[in-house]
């Protein structure tokens, strides 16, 4: 049987009816993972996964994730399973503990079948900078297009139908952008809604645990498992965890939805905009009030540089523990300084080093006022502007990306002014910690593209409700890039 485009709920029902066993599901997923030709995986947990299936407690079979194979981005700590964050500096590192989210999934009976590739240390948006090289977009058989990053392997594995769920992380748009390129639902709940304990930090104040599914309902039920306070993460929220699937199918009549005009105006692909507008019309037909909302263009343009400065600055510090002494690929030297320098020189790619220097330079006392502090000030202006919009709107929407998945030749991670707004605006969701979701709305040249919806902090129930309405307007769900 082909399980490739089945949702978590559908697989769960098959398991309950004994039409398939966890072992069969996991074996199938591992087989598909091994056949993967998109460079989606750092490590396939062949033996580990089979052992975990054997020790599954069948009294938990009513849990939705019981026996469900999942993929975890390789920047989540996994006990006894190598974890490198796709960086050479962590080659050989085998963590001694699992991330809180991994533990929560496993406690439900989910089986981690593989660790997925990412842009090195999650610091990139192309899926090309990991130490295993480029990850390809499964929708493009010619292998000339990216799937987006940094959660590239997770996106590819769900798009390919290997698993129905994959963990990712989202610091700027690292789940929500690849979701657009891969025809998936990519969801980043509110900052603090999900524990980050065990997620390798990139930029602490912007990092979010996020994930891919193939439909909105799966995104909602997954949050039921992942959300909630964790004593080990002092930034995790104590807010009560509602049932996120309860109001999923409620009517959206009267909901106010704002189209971020400045973002749409910054995009040039008429086909994408046409489909986006049609989707907005569909929401109107369902009773929503859809209007354009104005955000100062200067602030929209400021999102990207602000994001670059803050994320680079925090990343230099967050990755300062990578010195080869306690763990990782140590390179010897005649002094401890040499050990550190040799290790870090050899362990980090060129891109990463440039980012670190940008961050460190921005934090220096003599530069901070014009760089780091200014970026933090601008962050507040940006967030204030969006908060104001959220006073009037239940959700803000725009196309998630200005194009379908680009070809590799046209994309680089060097910093430039191109697509200042269109390609980078989604980082506002990280600056304000807003729940934000991308889902597919159409195809162009057989390649998918998506819409992004964002709501105010902790308003996931409402956001998922509107996202579900979008899904029913487009009818696009459970998409899998078929072998052709």
């Amino acid at each position, binding site marked *: 049987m082909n399980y490739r485009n089945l949702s978590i709920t559908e697989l769960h029902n098959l398991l309950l009816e004994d039409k398939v066993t966890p072992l069969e599901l996991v074996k199938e997923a591992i087989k598909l993972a091994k056949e993967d030709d998109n460079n989606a995986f750092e490590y396939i947990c062949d033996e580990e996964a089979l052992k975990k299936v054997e020790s599954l407690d069948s009294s938990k079979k009513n849990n939705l994730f019981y026996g469900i194979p999942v993929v975890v981005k390789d920047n989540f700590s996994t006990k006894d399973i190598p974890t490198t964050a796709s960086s050479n500096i962590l080659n050989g590192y085998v963590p001694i503990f699992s991330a809180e989210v991994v533990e929560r999934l496993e406690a439900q009976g989910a089986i981690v079948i593989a660790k997925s590739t990412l842009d090195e240390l999650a610091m990139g948006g192309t899926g090309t900078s990991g130490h295993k090289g480029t990850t390809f977009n499964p929708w493009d058989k010619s292998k000339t297009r990216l799937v987006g990053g940094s959660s590239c392997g997770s996106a590819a594995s769900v798009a390919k139908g290997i698993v129905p769920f994959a963990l990712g992380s989202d610091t700027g748009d690292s789940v929500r952008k690849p979701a657009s390129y891969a025809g998936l639902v990519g969801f980043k709940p509110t900052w603090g809604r999900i524990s980050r304990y065990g997620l390798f930090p990139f930029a602490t104040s912007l990092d979010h645990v996020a994930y891919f599914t193939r439909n909105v309902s799966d995104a909602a039920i997954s949050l039921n498992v992942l959300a909630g306070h964790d004593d080990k993460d002092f930034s995790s929220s104590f807010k009560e965890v509602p049932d996120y699937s309860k109001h999923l199918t409620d009517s959206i009549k009267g909901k106010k939805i704002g189209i971020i005009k400045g973002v749409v105006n910054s995009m040039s692909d008429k086909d994408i905009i046409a489909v986006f507008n049609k989707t907005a019309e569909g929401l109107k037909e369902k009773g929503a009030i859809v209007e354009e909302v104005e955000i100062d263009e200067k602030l929209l343009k400021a999102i990207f540089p602000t994001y670059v400065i803050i994320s680079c600055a925090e990343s230099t510090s967050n990755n*300062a523990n990578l010195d080869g002494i306690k763990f990782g690929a140590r390179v010897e030297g005649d002094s401890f300084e040499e050990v550190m320098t040799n290790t*870090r020189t050899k362990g980090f790619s060129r891109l990463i080093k440039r980012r670190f220097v940008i961050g460190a330079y921005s934090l220096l006392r003599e530069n901070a006022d014009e760089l780091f502090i*200014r970026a933090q000030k601008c962050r507040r202006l940006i967030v204030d502007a969006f908060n104001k919009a959220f006073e009037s709107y239940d959700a803000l929407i725009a196309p998630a990306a200005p194009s379908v998945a680009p070809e590799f030749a046209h994309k680089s991670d060097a910093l430039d002014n191109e697509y200042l707004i269109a390609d980078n605006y989604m980082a506002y969701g990280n600056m304000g910690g807003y729940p934000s979701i991308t889902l597919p709305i159409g195809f162009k040249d057989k390649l998918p593209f998506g819409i992004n919806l964002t709501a105010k902090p902790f308003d996931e129930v409402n956001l998922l409700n509107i996202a579900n309405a979008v899904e029913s307007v487009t009818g696009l769900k459970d998409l899998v890039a078929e072998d052709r």
Partner: protein
Amino acid sequence: MKKVTKEVLKSNAEKLMFEMSDEDLDLLVNEFGVIQEQMSLIGEIEGVDETTPMTFPFDVTSTFLREDVASEPLDRELALRNAKDVVDGQIRLPKVVK
């Protein structure tokens, strides 16, 4: 804003404990050009100077503190299993000169 030179960037890289190639330093000087240009535009946004810097995405103030209860320590083998040079239950480094 003052011009960022290769030398300054090189010294910053050294303080971050890595070496960079000449070529990368050139690329980085260019990138700084872009960043500085964008950041000066931000400096012109009305009200930016008077704004309080923002660290957290929203008000996240809490009252939670961890009770002072010790947990089981790690088994030493486990704690040190990822270190490359271990002697007598300790991680070894070339002599640290104070």
